[in-house]
């Protein structure tokens, strides 16, 4: 006859009420695991919802066509208008100059919009209200521009030749996300005002965008495809609403992939914590279990009593985890501020919460069942003699349940993953790691058992602690291996990103980039710079943009699809011509032309780009420059160092081949600090159509972005570390209990505290030494994956910090191991004996 569930629950509740602390490791690990998963699920669901809700307004239309350095032709416009209502914007970088005489200037993103803008979403002003395009000669400016140039509504600002009256400060630009990375704050003018600025000259760098609004039932992707097919060689950059902000999506995908990694790591760690927690709880309950058996409880009843206790605590932890996880997106949105592309609001997302709860429950079952199945078989005779559990096998039914629960976890991870293979690979790697650590624990016990016994009692005790029946070596090796690996991973990620930040600012970066210097003003520009600093270094080259229309005899418009990695064929690309080999280049095939070369057009191609096209020296390459096709022959291939802030292009043409095309110049200027201040004030008024970019500002922006990213990565990874520490503390606390008995007896027999601590240090030292190297390798591998494969940074960890982290982690483990024994060791032997 088996007891009713109510009767079982009564016994379980009575037994649990006084000892709920015993299950706190289970509760903490499950809470952390579920809260992490719920937070990640809610955050990504919140951002995805927001992005798809705002998909059209982010893009500014259903289909967007971007064209560089020119406006659409009449034929192109006619085709677009046939598809739907068209809104045109033109965006370019330009210097905003304050209205006061000698006022400051700032690089801004000037955006001219037509009267239709925006198709979707709303342009709102800080003064309130929804705005359309400003009136002619009026301008809306971004808050940063207003602050930096100290201009407010009603005052004026100059762009190029035109002066505008500020009609409002922009609160929200609806298509901001779709515009991608910008170097300066935005300023919006009416399309009709643009010619007055004089900024659009032949060769000027600008981008025209045409947003097409379709009727609700039209397939945007199909329309985009049809339009592209009509103008295959127009050099369009065409996007539809399903991919409104490709940069943002890439960011979300990368962050999502990393967060999945963190979530799965937290899940596996939580599982180990649950297993350890339940195991040590049931060990502390052995006397109670045996007593219950003496009074007539069968193994099924024992199993149900403790399963109910575990499920009750697990349910509490899961509910708490869901509660915290569901509000985390709001907290993250508040803390992260501008790092997130869109702010996730406080909405409950039932699906991720449900999935997190199921994960929690499955983890509790899968990892709690093995120790529970062993406990149910504890014989009643356990009261009469100390029973060494050893590695008692679990019964077949429990084994099937465990396998089913693990199978369900894997299925859930794969089914709910954005990238199932990635999740499957991670779970496989995690189980592989657990197997490896289990194997190492077994090997350690095997070797410790066979080593000659040390003569001194304390080393003998330390060695015996590793292999004796009931030793905690298994749990300690897994927890310590995992903990140290996590410490190393985080340290390697952090130091790599810090190095990335440091390396993003070269030691000898120029002071300014100057764009759109009129060709005829080049001499005056150089003179002004040399006046400000006679020792200035000026590197000025022509800047053009063209589209490759033919290579190696193959017309690009006849290609069915672009070759892999041939991004160079996408739309138009920057190019230049030069007599001398540009700095930072090295010829790897062919020869550079003589400085006074005057023959037919030659081109030098960057080696990787040439490889992607399958062309080499001697092959042909034709570019279209403002509609004129210029055929050239590949004269050489170069490798280029891109990260030195110099000026270089994938395609460099021979002198004389492109000179006739209208174009401007770009330059890098390296000047002294006082000259920097002089030029920042004198160049913009003298060259109103040019843009002067302070390299310091750009690097500061990049540094801020990278630092924010590093903080976000560290914060997310800390959750896994926190769970790892909980597991480590739990495993050490469980091991400590069995040490205390030995310590007290050794003390009674005359050992000093120093000797006893020495033995413990030796035991943990052996473990840390064995696991140190392994953790270093595993941690570096994990960090390499995160840094290089997910975030596309270079892997450059600081090895001295990694070594310190390992030593610190091992020291922390030792401290955790002994700190709980100290009160016992400090007591007199008689007191200590009573406390056993």
């Amino acid at each position: 006859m088996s007891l009713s569930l109510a009767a079982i629950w009564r016994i379980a509740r009575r037994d649990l009420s006084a000892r709920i602390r015993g299950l706190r490791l289970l509760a903490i690990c499950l809470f952390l695991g579920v809260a992490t998963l719920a937070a990640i699920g809610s955050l990504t669901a919140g951002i995805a919802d927001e992005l798809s809700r705002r998909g059209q307004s982010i893009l500014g239309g259903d289909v967007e066509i971007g064209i560089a350095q020119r406006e659409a032709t009449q034929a192109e416009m006619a085709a677009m208008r046939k598809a739907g209502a068209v809104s045109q914007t033109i965006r370019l970088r330009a210097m905003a100059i304050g209205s006061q005489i000698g006022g400051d200037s700032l690089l801004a993103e000037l955006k001219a919009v037509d009267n239709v803008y925006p198709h979707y979403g709303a342009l709102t002003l800080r003064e309130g209200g929804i705005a359309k395009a400003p009136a002619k000669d009026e301008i809306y400016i971004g808050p940063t521009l207003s602050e930096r140039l100290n201009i407010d509504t009603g005052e004026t600002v100059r762009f190029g030749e035109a002066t505008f009256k500020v009609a409002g400060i922009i609160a929200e630009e609806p298509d901001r996300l779709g515009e991608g990375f910008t170097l300066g704050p935005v300023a919006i003018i009416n399309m009709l005002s643009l010619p007055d600025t004089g900024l659009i000259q032949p060769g000027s760098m600008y981008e025209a965008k045409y947003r097409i609004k379709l009727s609700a039932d039209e397939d945007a992707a199909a329309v985009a495809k049809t339009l592209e097919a009509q103008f295959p060689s127009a050099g369009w950059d065409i996007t539809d609403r399903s991919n409104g902000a490709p940069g943002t999506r890439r960011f979300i995908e990368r962050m999502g992939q990393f967060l999945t990694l963190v979530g799965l790591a937290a899940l596996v760690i939580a599982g180990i914590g649950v297993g350890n927690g339940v195991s040590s709880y049931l060990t502390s309950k052995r006397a109670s279990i045996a007593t219950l058996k003496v009074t007539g409880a069968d193994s099924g009843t024992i199993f149900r009593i403790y399963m109910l206790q575990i499920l009750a605590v697990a349910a509490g932890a899961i509910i708490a985890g869901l509660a915290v996880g569901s509000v985390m997106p709001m907290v993250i949105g508040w803390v992260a501020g501008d790092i997130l592309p869109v702010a996730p609001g406080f909405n409950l997302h039932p699906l991720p919460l449900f999935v997190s709860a199921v994960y929690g429950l499955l983890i509790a079952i899968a990892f709690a069942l093995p120790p529970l199945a062993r406990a149910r078989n504890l014989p009643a005779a356990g009261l009469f003699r100390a029973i060494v559990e050893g590695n008692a096998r679990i019964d077949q039914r429990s084994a099937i349940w465990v396998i089913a629960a693990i199978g369900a976890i894997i299925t859930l991870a794969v089914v709910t993953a954005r990238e199932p293979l990635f999740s499957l690979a991670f779970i496989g790697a995690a189980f592989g790691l657990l197997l490896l650590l289990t194997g190492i624990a077994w090997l350690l016990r095997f070797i410790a058992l066979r080593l000659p016994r040390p003569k001194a009692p304390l080393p003998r005790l330390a060695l015996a602690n590793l292999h004796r029946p009931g030793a905690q070596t298994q749990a300690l090796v897994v927890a310590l291996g995992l903990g140290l690996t996590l410490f190393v991973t985080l340290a390697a990620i952090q130091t790599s990103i810090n190095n990335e930040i440091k390396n993003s600012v070269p030691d000898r970066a120029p002071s300014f980039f100057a764009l759109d210097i009129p060709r005829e003003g080049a001499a005056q520009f150089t003179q002004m710079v040399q006046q400000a600093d006679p020792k200035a270094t000026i590197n000025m080259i022509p800047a053009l943009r063209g589209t490759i229309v033919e290579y190696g005899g193959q017309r690009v418009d006849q290609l069915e699809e672009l070759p892999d990695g041939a991004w160079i064929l996408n739309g138009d690309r920057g190019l230049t011509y030069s007599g001398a080999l540009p700095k930072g280049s090295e010829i790897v095939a062919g020869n550079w032309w003589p400085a006074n070369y005057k023959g037919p057009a030659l081109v030098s191609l960057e080696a990787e780009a040439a490889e992607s096209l399958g062309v080499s020296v001697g092959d042909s390459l034709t570019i279209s420059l403002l509609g004129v096709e210029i055929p050239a022959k590949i004269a050489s291939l170069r490798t280029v160092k891109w990260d030195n802030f110099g000026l270089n292009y994938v395609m460099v043409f021979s002198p004389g081949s492109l000179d006739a095309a209208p174009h401007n110049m770009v330059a890098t200027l390296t000047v002294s600090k006082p000259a920097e201040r002089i030029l920042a004030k004198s160049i913009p008024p003298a060259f109103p159509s040019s843009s002067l970019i302070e390299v310091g500002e750009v690097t500061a922006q990049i540094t801020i972005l990278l630092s924010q990213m590093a903080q976000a990565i560290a914060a997310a990874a800390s959750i896994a570390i926190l769970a790892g520490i909980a597991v480590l503390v739990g495993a050490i606390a469980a091991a400590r209990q069995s040490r205390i008995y030995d310590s007290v007896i050794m003390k009674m027999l005359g050992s000093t505290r120093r000797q006893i601590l020495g033995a413990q240090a030796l035991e943990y030292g052996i473990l840390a030494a064995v696991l140190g190297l392994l953790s270093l390798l595993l941690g570096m591998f994990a960090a390499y994956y995160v840094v290089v494969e997910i975030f596309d940074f270079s892997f450059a960890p600081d090895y001295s910090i990694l070594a310190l982290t390992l030593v610190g982690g091992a020291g922390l483990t030792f401290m955790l191991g002994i700190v709980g024994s100290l009160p016992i060791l400090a007591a007199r032997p008689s007191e200590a004996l009573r406390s056993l």
Partner: protein
Amino acid sequence: MHAPVTHKADMAIRAANVTLSLGSKDASVSILRGVDLEVPYDSSVALLGPSGSGKSSLMAVLAGLEQASGGTVLIDGLDFTKLDEDELARARRGRIGIVLQAFHLLPTMTALENVAIPLELAGLDDPFGRAQSELEAVGLGHRLTHYPSQLSGGEQQRVAIARAMAAGPKIIFADEPTGNLDGSTGTAIVDLLFERRAALGATLLIITHDPELARKCDRVISMQDGHVVESAA
């Protein structure tokens, strides 16, 4: 699960050629080396012998806490050697009460809850009412809600006796029930044990080193090196 093997129950305990060996194959220790024993219903037996003679092991085998390595063990007509661990646990319900030297109360439960446990496990009606009556019978009606840590040694042993008696067992096993108690408390506990046994009409098998206590029993059995060496009325 095996069907319980029952025999004609003319004896509360009938053990024949019982052996018990513990440990692994390489280091096996023989604890019981062919014990024969018969104990009639409603009688009391004292089990004497030096430490290591096998008294507690014999009691563990007879109470179904340990599986005999060989021989036959019939308890109230049930063949305990044919039952597995769970069947033994179920066989103890309402049939066997056990009192141990170290009390072994559940530290997380009150006196009342400790006594109610075997009643609940046996599925008996009103477990808490019965437990309360039993605790009142052992003089602990005022300690119902106390935890073991709040009770003296004598009181804890009274709770253990109440727990053993509450389900009205036919056989009571007591392993040195006064071993952890002082002289006067021990005497009071022994009196209580015999009083409750008499009230239930149960069979009592008690392990003791105390000849005074042994004299209170109907029969005294002595053990040495895993054998019964003497049996006297």
